[in-house]
């Protein structure tokens, strides 16, 4: 019996939270709340329980993967839950709406339209490594405390690749960049503790540690991912293969020695002309440790997180409409699921301290994106697609065009950012995936309609979390915006 929504009945509610501050926890005693109470009323209740009435904090409430937007009773009854049971509500402080904060902004030359972007893992003030269509790499700072035009291009590697840079990945002192010509370059630096990012790229000369060659011959490399330990690299190519490379120090040294020997032995043949600006004849070349084949089309999404222990969880998403989890140690397929559309990006949740099961967010040739938990009943390769698709959570369509990039919040919490070809960036909460928390626009479209043809914003092609409190998006016209994502 679902009572009429208008009838005001009392619902027994128990509040829980995952907030790290114990001061934000309320006792687990069930409370009777009128069913007509909306988010604000519930926030008042929680604030009263926390004795924060002087400085009230707005909260978001979640129940069974749905964010409460209207009266509590309506949400509960729409979920088919009886109002007579005790309902457990999870609460979290609200994310500040985008109208409250001004996005920080940086410009790169328009000719070098950003193709991709990632966070440099420095404790500096918002630095982003950006790969461009013209094959160059840039490090851009986007200071969050400054307003418009505060961004500075710190350093540039003009000829990092001879083809458009498709993906970059950074972890500790290692960066990896890939390009459409099939080359992958591992960048790095001997990093003193006090070195700044300038030392990585600008003076001294950018340190090209190694080039990874020979695995993707039939097309470009579309995505790269660094292993959680930074000692291995996974690359995904347009030929549908995923390659694993060993880039730890011993392997690099061995490769460097071999390169030196060969240089001494043979005359310089200048075999590789598509090298960076410096004389790269002595750059060591690594070959792939393993090749994982199975995808039937180009692989555009690759994610490697440290969740799940061991080698971490390596995921790939392909234009053949499947997502796969690989065993990076054994070089074998663990499980896969059919998505139903071409996947062009993937991001995996990091395990920060805690034991978090691996979780993949994938998106692509649709305005929707999805979440895949591979722990669910493993699917054999011969299984049909619909059964696999049933355990994929797919969000609503907030984007009017394809989702190009997805990024989990790095601290292992529940936020996911998505960037789309229509220029919008959405912030999602895993606990309520039906509606995005906020939609962020760096470059506002002229009209609010979803009509793509008229004056659409340039597509957002790069996406990175700057710490856990800001999201930076790189646009195809070379502009970079950073949006603070802070809670009250």
């Amino acid at each position, binding site marked *: 019996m679902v009572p009429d929504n208008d009838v005001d009945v009392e619902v027994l509610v128990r509040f829980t939270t995952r907030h790290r501050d114990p001061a934000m926890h309320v006792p687990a005693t069930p409370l009777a709340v009128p069913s007509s109470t909306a988010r604000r009323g519930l926030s008042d209740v929680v604030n009263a329980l926390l004795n924060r009435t002087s400085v009230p904090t707005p909260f978001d409430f979640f129940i069974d993967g749905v964010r409460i937007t209207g009266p509590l009773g309506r949400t509960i009854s729409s979920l088919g839950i009886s109002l007579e049971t005790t309902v457990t509500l999870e609460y979290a402080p609200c994310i500040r709406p985008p109208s409250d904060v001004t996005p920080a902004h940086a410009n790169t030359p328009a000719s*070098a339209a950003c193709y991709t972007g990632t966070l440099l893992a420095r404790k500096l003030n918002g630095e982003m490594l950006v790969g461009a269509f013209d*094959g160059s790499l840039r490090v851009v700072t986007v200071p969050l405390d400054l307003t418009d035009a505060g961004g500075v291009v710190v350093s540039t590697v003009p000829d990092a690749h001879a083809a458009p840079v498709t993906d970059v990945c950074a972890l500790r002192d290692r960066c990896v960049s890939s390009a459409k010509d099939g080359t992958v370059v591992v960048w790095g630096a001997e990093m003193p503790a006090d070195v700044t990012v300038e030392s990585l790229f600008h003076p001294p000369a950018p340190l090209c540690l190694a080039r990874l060659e020979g695995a993707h011959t039939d097309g470009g490399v579309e995505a790269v991912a660094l292993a959680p330990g930074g000692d291995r690299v996974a690359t995904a190519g347009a030929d549908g293969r995923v390659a694993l490379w060993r880039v730890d120090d011993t392997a690099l040294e061995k490769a460097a020695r071999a390169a030196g020997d060969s240089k001494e032995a043979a005359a310089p043949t200048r075999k590789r002309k598509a090298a960076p600006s410096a004389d790269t004849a002595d750059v060591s070349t690594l070959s792939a440790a393993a090749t994982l084949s199975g995808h039937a089309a180009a692989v555009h999404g690759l994610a490697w997180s440290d969740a799940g222990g061991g080698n971490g969880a390596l995921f790939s998403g392909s234009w053949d409409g499947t997502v796969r989890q690989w065993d990076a140690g054994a070089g074998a397929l663990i499980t896969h699921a059919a998505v139903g559309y071409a996947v062009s990006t993937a991001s995996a949740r990091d395990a920060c301290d805690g034991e978090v099961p691996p979780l993949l967010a994938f998106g692509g040739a*649709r305005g929707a994106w999805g979440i895949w938990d591979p722990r669910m009943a493993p699917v054999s390769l011969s299984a049909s697609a619909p059964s696999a698709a049933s355990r994929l959570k797919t969000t609503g369509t907030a984007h009017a065009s394809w989702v190009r990039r997805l990024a989990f919040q790095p601290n292992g919490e529940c936020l996911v950012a998505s960037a789309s070809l229509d220029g919008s960036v959405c912030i999602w909460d895993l606990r309520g995936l039906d509606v995005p928390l906020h939609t962020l626009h760096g470059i506002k479209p002229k009209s609010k309609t979803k009509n793509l043809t008229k004056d659409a914003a340039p597509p957002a092609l790069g996406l990175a979390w700057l710490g856990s409190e800001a999201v930076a998006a790189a646009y195809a016209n070379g502009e970079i915006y950073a949006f603070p994502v802070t809670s009250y």
Partner: protein
Amino acid sequence: MGGKQKQTHDDVDEGGDDGSFSDSELSEELVSESELSEELVLDDSDSGLSEEYDGGNDDDSGEEDDSEEEDDNDSDEDDFDELVLHDEIHADEDDADNPHQDDDSDSSEDDDDTKRNTVGAVPVADWYRHEDHVGYDKHGEKVVKEGAGGGAGEPPTDAIDWFLKRVEGGKDARSFYDEYEGRTVNVTPGELDLLRRLREGRMPSRAINPHAPFDDWFSRETEIMPLSAAPEPKRRFVPSKHEAKKVLKLVRALRKGTLKTLAQKREEEAKAAEGGSEPYLLWGDDGDALLEDGRPYAEGLSARMKKLSHVAAPKQRRPGHGQSYNPPTEYLKEEQEEQGATGEDDALKEATEKDDDRMLAAPIPSMRQIPAYDKLVSERFERCLDLYLCPRVEKKRINIDPRSLLPALPKLSDLRPYPRLRHVTYQRGDTSRTAKASGARAAAVAVAVDPSGETVAVGFDDHVVAIFDVLTSVEVLRFSLPIPTEDDRDEAAVRHISWRPAVGTISDNSLPLGESRAAAAPVLAVAYGSRVLLVMPAVGPAAAEAAASVAAAASNANLAKSSKQRRQAGDTSAHGPLADTVSAVWVARHKTRAAAAAATEGSEASVASWGTYEHDRAAGAFCTGPYARLTGQGAVSISLPRANRANFVPCSSVAWHGKGDYFVSVNALHNRSGDSSAVVIHRLSSCESAKPFSKTFGGLKFVSFHPSKPQLFLGTMNHVRMYDLSRRALVKKFLSGTSASLSLRAGCPVHSSGDHFLCGAEDGTVSWFDTDLSTKPYKVLRLGLSRAASKNAAGAGAAISALAFHPRRPLFVACCDDATVHVYHGMVYADLMSNPTVIPLKTFRRVHTVPKTGEGVTATCFHPRQPWLFTAGADGDVHLFCD
């Protein structure tokens, strides 16, 4: 008489000789009898007797002999009793049919009539001892003793005479005196024989031989020479048709129910004993009645029962005395009964109503006083109503659900993926600025996705070819073609673009490895003005690979020369060194070959001339965009021949062969035939061009190679021709299905199976041709019929502007001038037996509408692998539709 008997005997003999043993058993026996003559004599009564006594062997004697013998016998008997003899002769004559009759019995029969004693069982000897008679016959006359009357045959009163007579022998030896009859009776030899045989205990008649030897005609032993050598007749082995008919009759009767088995009869009897019969649907055969499980009741009935059943009216009782107008008084209603009927007692009323014999309360004395039937009018009226409302003839009505006549279509969800939603729009970077400045955008007129599926090339009508990245929707490269100053500018727009199909290497063994790899790089052919431009937007792996190998193998003087030339030409823009080299190799190779070709061919300027494309620097940079520094600036230009210098001939279409070496260019010479240079086939690896036709038809609308065979499809206004290029012959000519001309507007590249292509007409019809099937369309789809257009009778819809097959998936698309895009499922089967399946999937409306002109989609193509549809429109955008 005896002759006759013999004759029959002969007949019998002959019959026996004939072998018909069925009924000649007896005669055979007779023939074999040793006492044949005796038997015959016996058969022939007294004549036989004489024969026996004469020892006559009369087998061969004729009829006359027989008669003589008879006469002899008669004379013998005359000696004793003329009368008797006379009677016997008569008797013989009378009883010719009865040969076994004895003489004696004959005579006694004669006596019966006249002289037989009728006194009965009285002691005749005592009573009539002293009389001269022994009694009376039936006429009451005395039967006179022999000898008493003293007649001719007086009895031998003297015992001695009697004895002597008997001793003397002769006839009298076998005579005795019959006291009762009072006369002497002779015993014939036949009777004597009979008596003797009886006394001996033998068979009385000689004709019957009880101990005839048993002749075993039939035995169970298999004889070597059986009586009948006839083979076993076929009927012994064939089931009898007659019996089958009988059995069938019985089976039918059983089925029909007219014949019932014993069990059924008992069952029915048991049911009848229980009371009542099985309930059945009276009107169940009218077709609408259903059983409990939903099946029609009539389904289980026989054909005869399915007909409208005739329900006989109940038989009415014959009118009894009560119906008489003047019944006897006992049939009249009595006074108290009438009162009871009008009273409350219903039971009594019913009882009286049932009793038909008591109708009238009072008799009508005479017939003329009978009143008219009071219910006549109402009953006739109701009968008319019945006849009016109740059809007497069963109407055969077939109830067919019209939906069941339609072919079963699969669910649309089963046909996924197919383009369902518009997701991405590709726009030129300068589009919005241009639009603001001039108020009009350059229309996109051609679209093509490269074989790897990563980039899409778009040709605009303002002499721009832009290349977009499919994944990111960014314009990565733009080739700005200079607007030609001479000739008319309008004709110099980009008409068509086409990527070379993905090939590993061109099979040109003369090329070094590096060059062949370079030759495998992506090439985009642009139909531009009166020439075909081959640009190589070499970005990515193919270019890098080619560049690396080319750099390794670069020892060609042309390379150095050409790159030197290019450097000297002041090309200072930031070129990617490798890509430039690749392009330079390309250009140089083609230039040298073109020069060589020109040198050899001399003045033959009719065929297209190859050369490098010299870009007019004043018109701006040739290649711009984010990829510009990574790709080459060069291009190969093929100038197409002109029939007439005054008459500018723009190139309208370019199509590649599936192996990527040959391509064909077609100029859009409208409504003019007889020009040989309309179709030119080019070979990329050898930089040669050729005109395959000495004369072509004007108004060429589309051209396409067969994907694998050396066949060329040329579409003109009225028909599509299929040529075999190796045999240089016309193979087929495809016409429209109706008498009207094809009025071809757009065609599409031939399906990857090679057997199917589409034609779009000006009236909005799309014709699917199966080259194996017929020269008429396999299927005609009427598209482009807007609601307004479908209302008028002509029904001409908007013209088809573009068509495309998906290279791998069963999809095709048709775009109309009314800004609609129709996506179809078109499955082509490999076997020849099943026809292609065409199912409409999705229609997009108001795609690329331009407000003033109303133009819509101008070109379309599919992604080579994904179910993605690209459309280019007059508004300058390219849309991507995906699942």
